[in-house]
């Protein structure tokens, strides 16, 4: 397969779809920005794509909870999403897309339809945009992380990004399943409080993946670090050849190319 087809799923209020699609096109994939109304009408079919991306934004204004309405639509109109994941095709939900995947019951575990985690307002009580340091779980089998260093930087921009779990036991399960894909850390790699952990997420969780590693949800925005000129300090330092964001998308594209 030369150019994997990517479904960049949109709804009213999705606002990171264009730069996400352009980054994927830049890597040689064939992204299509598709409104969920086209999946509802049957004009577009999920299974005809190789990769699914749910980009960031404020779907339906996040009016009754971040990503809630969009997640319900995903449950209703992307009935084959669970199968898509089970077939091992890459799925990535970014920011609002992560919230959608969790509220649609696809993450952290996609074997039931039940929503098992949730999001609430940042501890700071307001929307915040800032670059954060992240540590990738080296035990994670997530296909998006191949070749990436353990410590990376990406920007976050959200008001409702604090991940909450049902119980301490669930956290232990997530650890055991290697579902915790990324954590917010200080610049020396330690778990730390605000502002390093920008929202107060439990156990500093920034990203979750399914145990199989083909479905990733993350609050930070990889599409906002696809050029070295995106980094806040590009005028001060030199960088590795490929940026973290581009490398994550490339991993998914390469995975499909086999």
């Amino acid at each position, binding site marked *: 397969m030369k150019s994997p087809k990517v479904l960049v799923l949109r709804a*009213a*209020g*999705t606002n990171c779809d264009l730069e996400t699609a*352009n*980054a994927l096109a830049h890597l040689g994939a064939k992204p299509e920005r598709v409104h969920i109304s086209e999946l509802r009408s049957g004009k577009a079919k999920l299974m005809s794509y190789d990769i699914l991306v749910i980009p960031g934004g404020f779907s339906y*204004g996040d009016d009754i909870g971040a990503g809630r309405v969009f997640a319900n639509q995903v449950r209703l109109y992307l009935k084959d999403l669970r199968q898509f994941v089970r077939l091992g095709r890459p799925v990535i939900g970014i920011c609002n897309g992560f919230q959608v995947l969790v509220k649609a019951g696809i993450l952290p575990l996609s074997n039931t339809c039940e929503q098992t985690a949730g999001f609430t307002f940042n501890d700071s009580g307001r929307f915040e945009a800032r670059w954060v340091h992240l540590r990738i779980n080296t035990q994670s089998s997530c296909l998006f992380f191949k070749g990436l260093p353990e410590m990376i930087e990406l920007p976050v921009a959200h008001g409702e990004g604090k991940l909450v779990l049902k119980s301490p036991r669930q956290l232990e399960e997530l650890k055991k399943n290697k579902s915790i894909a990324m954590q917010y850390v200080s610049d020396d790699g330690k778990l730390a409080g605000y502002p390093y952990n920008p929202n107060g997420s439990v156990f500093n969780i920034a990203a979750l993946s399914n145990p199989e590693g083909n479905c990733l949800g993350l609050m930070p*925005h990889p599409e906002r670090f*696809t050029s070295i*000129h995106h980094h806040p300090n590009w005028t001060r330092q030199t960088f590795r050849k490929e940026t973290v964001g581009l490398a994550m998308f490339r991993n998914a594209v390469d995975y499909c190319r086999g």
Partner: protein
Amino acid sequence: MTVAAPEKELKTVEKPKVFAFNALSLKDLKALSAESLWSFNEAELLAIQAHFKAQRREPRAAEVETLAQTWSEHCKHKTFTGPIRYNDGKKTRLIKNLFDETIAKATKQVAKPWCLSVFKDNAGVVAFGKKWALAYKVETHNHPCAVEPYGGAETGVGGVVRDILGVGLGAKPVLNTDIFCFAPPAYEGPLPEGTLAPLRTLRSVVAGVRDYGNRMGIPTAAGGIWFDADYRLNPLVFVGTVGVLPVWAVKKEIKPGDLIVTVGGRTGRDGLHGATFSSANLTDEAPASAVQIGHAINEKRALDALLCARDRKLYRAVTDCGAGGFSSAVGEMADGLGARVRLENAKLKASDLKPWEIWLSESQERMVLAVPPKNLKALEAVFSAEGCELSVIGEFVKSGRLVVTFKDETVVDLDLKFLHKGLPRVERTAVWDVPKPSSKGAVTKLKLAEILQRCLAHLNVCSRETIIRQYDHEVQGGTVIKPLQGVRHDGPGDACVIWPHAATGDMEDLSGFAVSHGLNPEYGKTDPYRMALACADEALRNLLCVGADVSRAAFLDNFCWASPEDPHQLGRLVRAAEGARDAAIGFGVPFISGKDSFYNQSKDVNGKDLPIPGTLLISAVAPVPDVSKALTMDIKGPGNALYLLGWTSEELCGSLYNEVCGLSGGSVPEVEVRSALDGYRAVGSAIAKGLVLSAHDLSEGGLAAALSEMCFSGEFGAAIDLDDVARSGSIYSNEALLFSESPSRVLLEVKPENEAAFLKCAKGATVKRIGETIANPILKVRGLDGLVVLEEPLSALKTAWQRTLPEAME
């Protein structure tokens, strides 16, 4: 989908609501105008009466309302375009049209071929490379933000974004800007009933800008705040948007037979009389219904659908529904043609709206398109795919009349010529009170370190991080020079640089653009002319500091003033407009768009009029040919040379130094355009050659504040010698050298090995090496007598700079 009603139903069956207008005396007309919130002046009332007398009929209610909206100060800019008898302190002369003789004159004179559309469309448009164009508009939303700050700020953003969607055939918004002028949040003086506390205004306006811009997915990455207690009754909120559009989409045209199609939000009762209400002094009886209710996601839907329809060329023209609603949008589009509108086809929020309410409502998120009938089906498909509503409310015809009906009732039947050209011009008088030369201020007993700390901690200089972080300044993946800069991403950048090609998809194209602002009402209190020059100069310097090509810069003007009916206020406006003209001609930078807002004055607790300080915001935009060569302001390393561009004179009137020391007097900073321009050209070429590591402009707080900011943002110290500063002969104090606000100065960091090449570039400009950067994190200043007069740790300076705003907003 409702089909447009056939022509034969035109006849009126029921007698529509009319006024007994023609028989009224002038006194009664004025009473009626005040009661109906029309804000007409005498001449206008008489002109309307004469028009309808000649027609031998009484005007219908909605006709007078349409005239009130269209002829409002808000829509027609009567002060700027009307005749003014101006006394400049020596003699009196007649200014026929202030706008033509200042702003427009400058643009005409500098005649830049890359200006694609100036002043006539919803925004100014300049070329951006061969394929693309940039559209930029800055609006004010002052009156609404005074009454309902959250909603006012939201709909301010929504409105200016729609201006960009409605320029040419529609541009994609890629940047939002926001500038506020408020009273200090801690202001505790008495406020008249109905006035909101400054802290509440500040918090709510920030929240409104945040919630609308973030939801729309447009980065808010440039702006500023100015605090002055005289804004307590009339806060100012400037909101701007830059859009990118393909060059082919800059022009629009309408043909007879094109359908009038409205898209986006529904029409409701919110926002009645917005245009007229903002064209009068604000009182505690200002109606809340005059402020609209925003819904960002509806506007995002309209944006997505509109740009898709644009690229498929499904419509011929577009404009936004702003002040005056349909009446302004359709009225403007129909100019030179004619229009036939059937209001019963409009989609409504409530079914009991009266026809005139539908016609005048300023409900948000609505756009009006001119659509060839054959494209309607395809257009409907595009909008319905995005979940965006659409309705056909009429068609453009070649009648020269604006005819509006609701079912069988004629609501408006107006001659378009009268509507657009019938406005009588009223001559105003203006007087410039030449300020008495003020002696130099007394001497302060404060230590230099104390003055510096007070400057950095001052509300008009301190860190804005707590606000900037609430805005998504990186959405769309184009913010390559961010508003916050330096090692810890918290230093104050001079301007942002946007690389819009993450959104256009031309990923190999590294061209971008920078946006900056200049504003200093404090200077204007003494001399509005010098203020205007200083604002223009500051905006240009900010662009220079991030590596933009200032020879390709364009300006936008926003004048916010008190009542133009006060000759002294109007005199100050004339002075400011002349300053803006001379700056634009001198720098060779055209104005491409502008806006004015008058009547920013209200009665204080004692019943006395409190005017705002005359405020001019100059916004500037310029291309950055290669964003990989852009600069930030943070010091990059130790052992580098520090160069200062420009002359320093003792210019402390209106300075921050005077304010923090409790002093007054001196002279207002004066721009010498010629030498400033030479300096910018020289430094610009050095930056383009990669010879400059960092650059920062000198503004409030002068050299001392600028150097402190560069150092604590880069976490390297600096040692400078004031004796090396290029200065005018009369300056002999360390204070003046450190804190004077002489314009046109930039501080530059240059690597030792590049100094020779840098100086070669800078030939002909005043550039002096004043010291170097050091590893020790301190600021060390040697005074004129050779002694160290200031030695402060950067941490103390940074703390002072960072603490103020979070504490004030708690």
